[in-house]
């Protein structure tokens, strides 16, 4: 049985391993809860990976996003919470131009991707190029009705990777990163639809990771899954932080509290408040935020 100090030491070394290159003074030998606080403080010094500037969005004549200004820090998990219809999924889908698949949508403002300062929603930017740099995992697991291998390899094939060995290598790497290699390594050529819901979702995550996206978008990734599968994916999300910037939309506030470093609260298409997750859930600045997270919807 682990003592408290055993667990804390394990956490400390794990976090040190994932925080590659981040400096934070971990000079005390006795682990303490302040590790998490230092982690969060150090992360506040992270560079921005993307920033939304004066972003507005319309479905036809209906304005769904109003003047959003939000910085997405690199190598952190940022969560978007808010009631139904607040625009969080709409905002998420601006990042990979999924709205372009529908008619009569309009973007205004910018989402600037660093470091090359591309405006993701600009009319001059090709949506296909955007989607090749920004990956997405959807609410209901949606693997292709192909084998597990082909699912993960599809993104690579689109990018011209066709050599068998290279594909096999990169597929394995992606499946390992998605913490599902051990479960599927003997069934790579079987249909992905034969897996359980949680496994399918991890294969979808592997599929998105295979192409090394710069930002990975999660649209309520566990709302269709049971608690154990949910826990595995939450664990995965916190680990993936070190390799990719993550933006997650979730209905489940406890999930946002568990996995994210920063939480943004949206309401009726506007950004109400954004701050470190620990601050939002213990003492938010805006009453509207507090009312929402404590269940006072009036």
């Amino acid at each position, binding site marked *: 049985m682990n003592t408290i100090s055993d667990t804390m030491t394990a956490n400390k070394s794990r976090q040190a391993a994932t925080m590659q290159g981040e400096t934070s003074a971990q000079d005390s030998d006795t682990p303490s809860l302040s590790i998490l606080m230092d982690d969060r403080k150090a992360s506040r010094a992270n560079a921005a990976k993307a920033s939304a500037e004066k972003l507005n969005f319309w479905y036809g004549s209906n304005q769904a996003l109003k003047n959003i200004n939000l910085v997405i820090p690199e190598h952190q998990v940022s969560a978007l919470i808010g009631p139904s219809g607040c625009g969080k999924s709409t905002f998420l889908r601006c990042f990979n131009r*999924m709205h372009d698949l529908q008619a009569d949508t309009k973007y205004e403002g910018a989402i600037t991707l660093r470091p090359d300062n591309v405006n993701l929603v600009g009319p001059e930017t090709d949506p296909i190029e955007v989607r090749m740099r920004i*990956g997405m995992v959807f609410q209901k697991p*949606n693997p292709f009705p192909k084998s597990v291998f082909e699912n993960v390899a*599809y993104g690579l094939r*689109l990018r011209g990777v066709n050599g068998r060995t290279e594909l096999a290598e990169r597929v394995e790497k992606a499946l390992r990163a998605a913490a599902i290699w051990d479960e599927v390594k003997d069934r790579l050529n079987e249909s992905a639809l034969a897996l359980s819901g949680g496994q399918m979702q991890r294969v979808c995550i592997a599929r*998105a990771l295979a*192409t090394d996206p710069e930002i990975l978008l999660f649209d309520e990734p566990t709302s269709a899954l049971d608690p154990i599968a949910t826990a595995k994916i939450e664990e995965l999300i916190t680990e993936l932080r070190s390799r990719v910037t993550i933006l997650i939309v979730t209905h489940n506030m406890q999930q946002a509290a568990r996995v994210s470093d920063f939480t943004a609260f949206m309401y009726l298409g506007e950004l109400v408040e954004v701050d470190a997750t620990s601050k939002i859930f213990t003492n938010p600045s805006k009453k509207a935020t507090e009312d929402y997270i404590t269940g006072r919807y009036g």
Partner: protein
Amino acid sequence: MAATAHLTLEEIRKGLSWRKQLDKAFTVLGLALLFCCLGILAILFFDLVRDGSSRFGWDFFTSFPSRKAENAGILSAAVGTMLIMVVTALVALPLGVAAAIYLEEYAPKNWFTGIIEINVTNLAGVPSIIYGLLALGLFVYQFNFGQSVLTAGLTLALLILPIVIVATRESLRAVPKAIREAAYGLGATRWEVTKDHVLPYSTGGILTGLILGLSRAIGETAPIITIGALSFIAFLPPSPVTGEFPFLNFEWLMSEFTAMPIQMFNWVSRPDQAFQANAAAAGAILLGMTLAMNAVAIWIRYRFRKKISW
């Protein structure tokens, strides 16, 4: 016990028995109607078979039409029908699938495409003789294809095009949006999404649609009469496969032809009673071919549905 809002068990049972009776009555009615229709079809079929029973045999299949009923066979008609079906399929499939893909995946949803869609569906209801007249003017005279297998194939292709388009569109629509989103999310272009994901999973529905279309085309008489199918053909179109290079020739396309419905019509209208048997036999065979094609369509749909479950 005091009166309560909910029903007691006796009250529930009393009301339920009437509803159950209605339920049973509808089931019985439905079954009765079904057996009626199937019964009529079965009676027709057996009637044909019985009338034509004297003619069934290898000779019937391998003989050309002749003045004498006993010697008359359906060789040229059967071959003609099959060749026409080949041309029809080869023309209708790519055209229909491409049109459906365009309408479903590419076309913007505006008033213009709306009009196109309405017209496609309406075309299915156009009387087939109109297609014959169109073909006569366009293919036979304008393009100078003559009264040939090619003309017949093109005409029937046009006839079944709406069926193929509609069936294809339905299959394309059946592919869940989630699959498309996943593919787009990985950076696929619209064509890649269609080619790699939508089309492969729609194949079952598309083939089913095609075969259903063909099984309709196989029995169409009016258009091919209009374009001038002859009824007494004592020869076969030239074989498409020859012994010398380039091993394929297309002369058969331009050859004159006959088809099963024509042959039947011709025999039925003869005063000689003996030919009725021939007509009946040919009819039974035609009906059998149609049923067989439908069965193949159903089997294909079943096989494809088993492989892919969303």
